């Protein structure tokens, strides 16, 4: 298996104080990695470093092209775009800004929507879709980007059980194709089903296989004493 993402002593900051530091991990093709941490613990900072939106304060980071599946409530749900329009945005990174998408790119976007089970919803307005459907449209956009690494920012938040199952199956498929996935989540039990976990609380607390990594001590350092007891 080949290493897709490698971070060594990575730190990210917005002001003088590090928002996240001491991040060292390597992800191989085909691995799903749960990113666990409290709100403000640095999950979003890690994603910004990985997409290149934030330059590392210290350390090194090697990764190929990265696609992100953001939380859809943060996008403009009143904006008049179809599911197909959103999937098609994945082709932008390969085209200069003055060139409009061609038929081949539209075909790719249709294919991607079909893969995520939304072929019939291609012409529906993005904001009118359910939360689970919107997540899958963004996964389709990542497929059009054809990125070897996909980041998912709390994709299971607000999904009903059926949508969550469906998304979980889709993520397994993406990993089986040889992509590396980083999935921010609040649910350590869900992360136990994946190959790796990365725990952060303003610094990296632990990284490794879930069973060996998600000890009481690690959960306590990640979430603080009280919450770790509940989980």
């Amino acid at each position, binding site marked *: 298996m080949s290493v897709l993402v490698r971070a060594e002593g990575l730190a990210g900051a917005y002001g003088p104080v590090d928002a996240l530091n001491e991040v060292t991990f390597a992800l191989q093709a085909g691995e799903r990695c749960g990113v666990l941490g409290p709100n403000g613990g640095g999950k979003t900072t890690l994603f910004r470093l990985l997409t290149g*939106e934030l330059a590392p304060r210290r350390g090194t980071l090697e990764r190929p092209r*990265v696609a992100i599946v953001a939380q859809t409530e943060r996008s*403009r749900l009143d904006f008049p775009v*179809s599911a197909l329009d959103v999937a098609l945005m994945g082709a932008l990174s390969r085209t200069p*800004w003055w060139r*409009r998408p061609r038929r081949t790119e539209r075909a790719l976007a249709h294919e991607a929507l079909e893969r995520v089970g939304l072929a019939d919803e291609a012409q529906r307005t993005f904001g009118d879709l359910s939360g689970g459907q919107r997540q899958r449209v963004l996964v389709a956009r990542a497929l059009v980007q054809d990125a070897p690494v996909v980041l998912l920012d709390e994709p299971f938040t607000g999904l009903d059980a059926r949508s969550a199952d469906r998304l979980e199956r889709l993520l397994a498929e993406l990993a089986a194709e040889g992509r590396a996935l980083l999935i921010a989540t609040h649910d350590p039990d869900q992360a136990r089903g994946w190959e790796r976990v990365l725990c952060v609380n303003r610094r990296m607390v632990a990284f490794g296989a879930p069973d060996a990594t998600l000890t009481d001590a690690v959960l306590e350092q990640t979430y603080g004493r009280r919450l770790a007891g509940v989980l």
Partner: protein
Amino acid sequence: MLDVLLDPWRDELTRRALAEVTLLGIAGGALGCWIVHLRLAYAAESLAHGLLPGLVVAALTGIPLLAGGAAGLALAALGVAVAGRLPALDQDTAVAVVVTTLLGLGGLLALSAQTPPGLGDLLFGDVLATGDGDLALAAATVAVVLAALWLLHPSLLAVTFDRAIAPALGRPPFTADVAVALLLALVLLVAVQGLGNLLVVAVLVGPAAAARLVTRRMAPMIAVAAGVAVAGGLAGLYVSYHGRTAAGASVAAALVAAWALTAAATHVRGLRT
């Protein structure tokens, strides 16, 4: 009845005015859709008012209004940029302070005893004074705006949909922001001479806001907004001709009325279903 419809166009002046408001309507209506979705309506209004001193100085010194307006626009943009960085002011307050200052300064210059009459034309426009040069300029503006919006369409969609993610898609918002700002400056400069300093924003915001209510995609919205703007211009000139009201103000009123009627109609339809 036919006379009522045809009478206004027997005159060269009103024919030119119609051509001018049609061209301005297409450019303003189309660009206005992005202005509305990028939440730049307030910025557009501010820039339009902020360029008044430039127009007045141009009128006083005899340099072309276009050059004066461009200088006024640059001054307003610079003022907003500087004031917005003052820690004591938030962005909206900074814009309001700068624009009110500039509008006041423009009024002060225009109402001084030495100033020849004609402030009204700067504030409310004089679409009936459209010349060949104005028409050529408006036609060129339409061509530039439509071509730029067509080319930038995919980028603008991505940036407006989710600014935070756009860089990861290969479209940093900066390019789109600069392009829209330049197009806005162009349309304001050209339209301000026909529609006036106080009314120019009507063509950017009214038709786009109306089109937003009845369309579900950007491309149809742009087409509908341009159509509404042209229809509003036509209606405004009829009102102006038969009611002997000011042409620019009548057009602006018709553009805003288009939004109000559309909003009322969609509301009533919404109640029925």
